[in-house]
Every structure is written in C-alpha cells, then in structure tokens.
C-alpha cells in the first residue's frame, strides 16, 4: 500500500541516451530513494513547495536522469534540480520533456567526477492543503475563554510523503496561474509576462524556504522529551517578511487521502467581554451578541497572527456539560488586533424601535409667480401660485431594549441616516461617521431601557448639507 502510493520516480538510466535514444523500449535504471523531504504548504493558495533530497552516483561524462510523476498534481514548470555537493563538477546540460510522456522529464547531467553526490529536487504540487481552526470554551460566566488552535493538513496530491518535515505558511502570495491547472499540462510554453510573474512567485516561495530555518529550540525540546511521555507536537512560529511560518516538530507522514489535525497552541483564561451590537449594515436587522477579545500578550495570546479558520464556541452550561454557542469564520487576525466573534441573535434581548410622534415645521413655499384670472362676466383675480419647497420633519423615537438574560448587558447601537439630519437625545451619543450615530446603553438583568431620540430631517429647500449633526438637550 505504501509503495503503491509512490508516484514519483527518479531513475538513473544506465546507458548514455541521446534524445532519440529515449524512445527505446528497453531501459535499465536504478531508483534512488528519497533521503529527506520537506513540505512547505500555503494556506492562501493550493500550493505546496516540495523539497526532496537523494543520493546519486555519477560517472564521469554525461549522466541521464529521468524524473516522472504520473497521477500526481505536480506543476512540471516548477521542477528544479540542484546539486548540494560537488557543485563545480556537476552541471545540468539540458532538460527534455518527451512528447509522448506527459508526466516525465529527462535531465542530462555532465559530471567531471566519478562518485556520489547529494541532489535536491524542488517542485510545486497542488492537492496538499492546510487550514486552521479554533475551539473556544467559555466559562459559565462568560468572562474567560479556553482557546485552542489547530492546524489540519489534508493530502490529496496523489503522493504519500513519508516522514516529511512540514512547514505551513500563513500569508498571501501572488500566483498568476493555478498549480493544479499547470499540473494538467505538458511542457510549459508561457507568455513572457506569465513567465516573469511566475518566476517572481516562485522566488517568493523559495525565499521563504531559504529564510525559514527550523527552530533549534524545538529540536532540543524534542530531544529532551524523547525519554519522557509522548507530548503533543510543538509548532514553532516565526515571522518572516509579510508571512508567518509554522514548523511542525519532527516529521509527519500523511498518506494520500488522509488528513491530520494537530494542536497549534492553546491559551487558558483568555479575557473575553460580551457586547451586543446593532449595526444593520454589518450584522442584519437585529442586534447580535459578540465575544470581544484581543490577540495580545495580556490576553495570553499574541505570539502569532491567527490565520483564517473556523472558530467554534462552546460554553460551560453550569451543569457539568457544554452548550453549543455557535461558529463563525475567523478572518486573519494580526498580533495585537481585536477578535470579534459574532454569536448571532439572542432571543433573551428584545430590541424595538417605536415611533412616538411625527411633526413638520419650517415649511417653505416656492412662489412661482402671480397668475391673472378674469371672470367671463367681469372681474379680475390675481393668484400667486406656490408649492412646498422645503420642510423639517421631526420624528420622536423610543429605542426600547429589554433584557431577559441573567446578567446586565451592554449594547452598542449604530444608526445611519441619509441627508441633512439633526439628532437629539438626552442619552450620550457620538458620531461614528458623518452619517452614523452611535450610542451605548446598559440594561440590567430583567430590566428595560428606552432611549428617546428625536430625528429631524431637513428636506427639500431646507436641506443644506448631507450629514448628521448631533444636538444636545432633552427630547420632547
């Protein structure tokens, strides 16, 4: 089974083959085993950089090497051969993609020595992915979270990479063509621009490889712990340019078709604040409940950005069990940034906007000029035509919030208005932006709060600007 999953073959062909000779039906070849393999998996693209090393014996003269990858998702344009030793004595003379074999290439290597050398083969493959996910357990009082972060690696590449060092890249890189798409093709014929951008993307990936050296502390920890009970693997995290590299302790074997989930980190007693928000443009027509926390050291976090991933929230139900609270996709959270988890609507908080009164004043008429009327049997009348051109419309609202939960709640309300608007309330409010009023109310458990506010819309001729002006003072 394990052997069957190996789709990559590197053959040292034991005869000097010219281009025409490659069509021969009878070859004799040796198959050098992989010595090491390293996977660098990107979460923003379906892209994995594979770097494998092998030992090969060369003879003086021309040495043909055949590399094939049937039934895999390798990008043939990305395959590179490098010599790790005897560099001055070894050189790739040419690379040939045979016309009749779609997943194969030949290297003609010129050797100035007889002996063994270590080679490295790099290539991109699709089909290996990693994602982050999180599990948050809130205490019964919802004051702290136990936050666990996981990485899940799935291998659908068609190849089993045994004992691979695995590195995960957090961040977005630029690709102009999908690796999975390139894997379908043959010898690449790229437009000049495409080739240039592709090379840049490849260089970005290679740069990450070069700069991301394995963390020595992790290796030492692993050595020290080897005599003790097996512990969850450490995942070392390092920043690099615009990226973060997660290096998984030791090596992993993830056969084709399998997925594996490892704990990235966990943090206990992460302070969390519960807030309700009414922001119709962001959250819809009803207020939602949120957990607010920060990815910083004060919260026991902040060692790494939090990659995109699903977060699932459970809460201690106070009866020796959990309560499922909800889930949401967490977008990338930089170190130090806030984390906002939307838990959805809360049926225990009732939110009603009640119109109380409407009145109009400051009504202006536009005079369109006198019109003269004459009666048939005599008499003249002058009528001055005019129509309403501007007015102020006042609406008094009560924003009623009822809290039937067991704790006092804080609710932040944002309302946006178009046009020339004056907003007045005895409740403190601020402008979130030029057209959005924001206020916060605290509602005790089992209590109800009415925030009365008057909205004056200056319409027609009376409209002089296009923003909201906050006024102070009592409302009617």
């Amino acid at each position, binding site marked *: 089974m394990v052997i069957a999953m190996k789709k990559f073959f590197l053959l040292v062909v034991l005869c000097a083959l010219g281009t025409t000779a490659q069509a021969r039906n009878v070859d004799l070849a040796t198959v050098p085993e992989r010595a090491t393999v390293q996977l660098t998996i990107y979460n923003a693209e379906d892209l994995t950089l594979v770097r494998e090393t092998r030992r090969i014996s060369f003879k003086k003269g021309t040495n043909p090497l055949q590399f094939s990858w049937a039934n895999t998702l390798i990008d043939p344009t990305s395959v590179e051969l490098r010599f790790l030793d005897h560099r001055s004595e070894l050189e790739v003379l040419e690379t040939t993609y045979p016309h009749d074999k779609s997943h194969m290439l030949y290297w003609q290597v010129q050797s100035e020595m007889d002996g063994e050398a270590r080679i490295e083969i790099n290539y991109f493959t699709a089909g290996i992915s990693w994602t982050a*996910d999180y599990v948050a357990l809130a205490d019964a009082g919802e004051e702290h979270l136990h936050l666990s972060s996981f990485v899940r690696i799935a291998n659908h590449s068609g190849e089993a990479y045994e004992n691979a060092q695995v590195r995960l890249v957090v961040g977005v890189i630029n690709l102009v063509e999908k690796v999975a798409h390139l894997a379908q093709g043959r010898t690449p014929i790229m437009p000049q621009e495409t080739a240039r951008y592709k090379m840049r993307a490849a260089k970005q990936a290679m740069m990450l490889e070069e700069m991301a050296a394995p963390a020595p502390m992790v290796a030492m920890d692993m050595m020290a712990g080897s005599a003790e*009970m*097996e512990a969850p693997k450490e995942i070392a995290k390092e920043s690099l340019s615009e990226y973060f590299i997660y290096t998984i302790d030791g090596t992993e074997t993830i056969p084709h078709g*399998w997925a594996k989930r490892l704990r990235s980190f966990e943090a206990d007693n992460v302070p969390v604040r519960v807030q309700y928000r009414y922001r119709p443009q962001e959250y819809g027509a009803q207020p939602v409940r949120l957990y607010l926390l920060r990815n910083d050291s004060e919260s026991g976090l902040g060692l790494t950005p939090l990659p995109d991933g*699903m977060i699932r929230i*459970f809460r201690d139900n106070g009866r020796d069990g959990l*309560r499922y609270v909800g889930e949401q996709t967490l977008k990338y959270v930089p170190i130090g940034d806030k984390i906002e988890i939307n838990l959805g609507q809360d*049926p225990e908080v009732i939110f009603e906007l009640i119109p109380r009164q*409407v009145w109009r004043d400051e009504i202006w008429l536009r005079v369109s000029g006198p019109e003269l009327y004459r009666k048939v049997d005599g008499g003249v009348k002058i009528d001055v*035509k005019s129509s309403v051109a501007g007015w102020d419309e006042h609406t008094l609202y009560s924003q009623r919030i009822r809290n039937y939960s067991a704790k006092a709640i804080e609710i932040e309300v944002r309302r946006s208005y178009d046009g020339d608007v004056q907003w007045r309330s005895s409740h403190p409010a601020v402008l979130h932006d030029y057209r959005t009023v924001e206020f916060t109310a605290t509602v005790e458990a089992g209590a109800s709060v009415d925030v009365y506010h008057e909205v004056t819309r200056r319409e027609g001729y009376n409209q002089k600007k296009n923003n909201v002006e906050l006024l102070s003072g009592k409302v009617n």
Partner: protein
Amino acid sequence: MRYSVLYLLLATMLWHIPLEALARIKLITLPPRERVEIQLDHARATLVEEERIVPLVQGVNQVDFAWANTQIDPDTLVFRVLGPADEAAGANDIKVLSVSYPPNENALIWNVAAARSGAARVRISYVIGGLDKSFTYRALADKDEKSLQLSQYLRIDNFANEEYGDSGIWAGFGERLQKQIGIGETKQVLLHKYTQVPVTKTYSTNAQTYLDRPKNKLRVPMHYVLRNDQAHGLGLAALPYGKVRIFVDDGKGSSAFIGEDWGQFTPLDDELKLYLGVAQDIVVVRTIDKSEQKHVNGNLYHHEVTLKYEIENFKNEAVILDIHENIRALRDELRGNNGRAVEWELLPTTTLGAADADKSTYDSLVFHADLPARKADSSADKVVHYLRLLLKNEW
C-alpha cells in the same frame, strides 16, 4: 433493527506504524457510553455530549471514533479527558497528540498519550443533524373562557440514525429530562403545565381586512390573548414557536376542540395571541363620513377626516371590541401615498376616547368600544362611534 452506528474503538498501537496499516490491524475495545447529554437549547444545532471510560495503556493509544450513516459534523467534535476513571488510582497525565482523518470514512482517530496504564473518563461532544426539537401546546379553556390550562410539550424527532439510551435532555429552559430515544423515534414530553392562566378573549377589527367591501363591513377576528409574565400565570421563560391546539371545557366533563394556531415566539412580558376565527355575531360597518381638505397655503393642506363605526353585537354577552386604525394607511387611502410620514392630531369630537397607549404606536392606534349584549327580543342596539382626525401639513 436497533443498532448503534457510533463506535468508539480503542486500538493500542505502536506510534510509528503507518496510518494505512493502523486502519487494517486493530486490537480494539468498545468502551460503552457512561452518560449522554443532549443539548437542544440552540436554535439550529443539537449538541450531544457522551462520556465514556476508555482503558489506556502507557504510551500512545489510538482512539478510533466512527459515525457511519449519521450526520455528525466532524468539525465540531471535541474530545476532552476528564481524568482517571478511578479517582483512587491517582492522577494520570493524558494528552491528545493529534487527530487523523482516514479517507472515505466517517471516522477519526485520536492519538492519545498516557503517562501510565489505566482507564480514563473522556467526554466527546459533537453537533449532530437529524436530532431535532419542536414545541407544541395544548390549551384547555374554562367554559367561561376567562382562564385556561396551557400544557407545553417538547417534541424530539430522532432521524439521526443513532440510538440514545438513558440520556439527559435539556431544552434550554425548564426541567432537565432523562429519556431514551430510539432510532426513528419521535418522543413528545410534557415540559410544563401552566394552570389558571388568565386569558382575554378579544374581538378586534381592522380597516385593512374587510368582510364585505362594498358594504363596508369589517371582519372581526377573535383571539385568545395570554400575557407571558408571572402575574398572568406564565413568565418562566420565553414561549418558543409552536402549534397550539385549543380546546374549551364544555361544562359536562368533556371538552370541544375549537381550533388551532401557530403560537409565535413570545418573549417574557409580551402577549401571545391565538387566532380563533372570525366572529359571526358582531357586525361592524366602517364608513368615511367626512373627507375634507383645508387649504393652508400654496399647495399645503390640512385634511379633516371622520370615520363612522356602526357596530351591532348579537351575542348574549357584552363584549369589548378593539378597533385598530392605521393612520398612515388612511392617509394613503384618501390622498395617495406621498412617501412622507403622517402628521395628525385627534379631534376632541371623537367619541372613542383616547387610544390605548400600551397597544398603540404613533401611526397605528387601538381604541376600545364597549358593546352591550343583545336584547331579550334578540335585537341588538347599534353602537355608533366617530373617530375624527386632522391630517396635517399634507401636499
């Protein structure tokens, strides 16, 4: 055939054996469930928590969890080690190393390291589909329809293709239940019985729903109105949405079914209105008696409106009729919809009195009209009311 399709297998393996081999060669134990809790409090998801005693050996253990033919969301699975099964045996250091997901199987494998051999108590939580809840109610009104008995039932449909033996069930409120739910079973459980719940039978009318438009006759819907607070015999929790079947005591030791309605989600302190049908014995004719615009200036007008309600009650008892009038809809009917809010004032010659402040909003008013019972000769007095309004600043 009843069978459990969830398996928790324990395989003690050497850590370095490849996963493909692991899936084929197993020495397994089948730890039974010690405790199951089903949490139905979430609006869209059902959480199951099960506790098992898992024997672990020193070193790395493979705990295989499979869920063929069920709708477990594998991404919601949480595995927690609560501690050693036998507290007297002392603490054991147990850690989850990783989780592996084999291809084309509804299964996963927890790799668990134990410092020493011994059984551990673990809890596995997951969200499962097909195990759903709903609520139904049975209302039995007294003969005089002044109070009723409201029975609230929790209904659990188990189409999750998994049998749950003696399980704790939590609906989010009320008592925790302990029940068994077999595969394909539906179980209805009485959650709470509220007795002596005061009920108001209301008759209402609304200009938006005519019974006979050419004759200006309005429909008169009837409702039972319950208030979800403790002063009115309820108020323990919000009442979830559900069908309410309504019966009335016939005074002869039996009851009559008088209809059913969907009870809307009713928060605390709110009213639950149950529609009973249209009253046939109350006749309401609504006429626009006056519609006169008054010139203010230019194209600006006030508009005086008089609505006349002629009401006859042919019932044997006096009732109160709730008259709903939407002022904006009235303005739109008379002047067309100009998109502006309606500004209005109630004129003092209105005979309906003041609008009910609790039930009215700015442009939707509720008035109450007392209607006497029909007379001995079966005739009914015609009660006439006028609602006089001034719509202001219209153009």
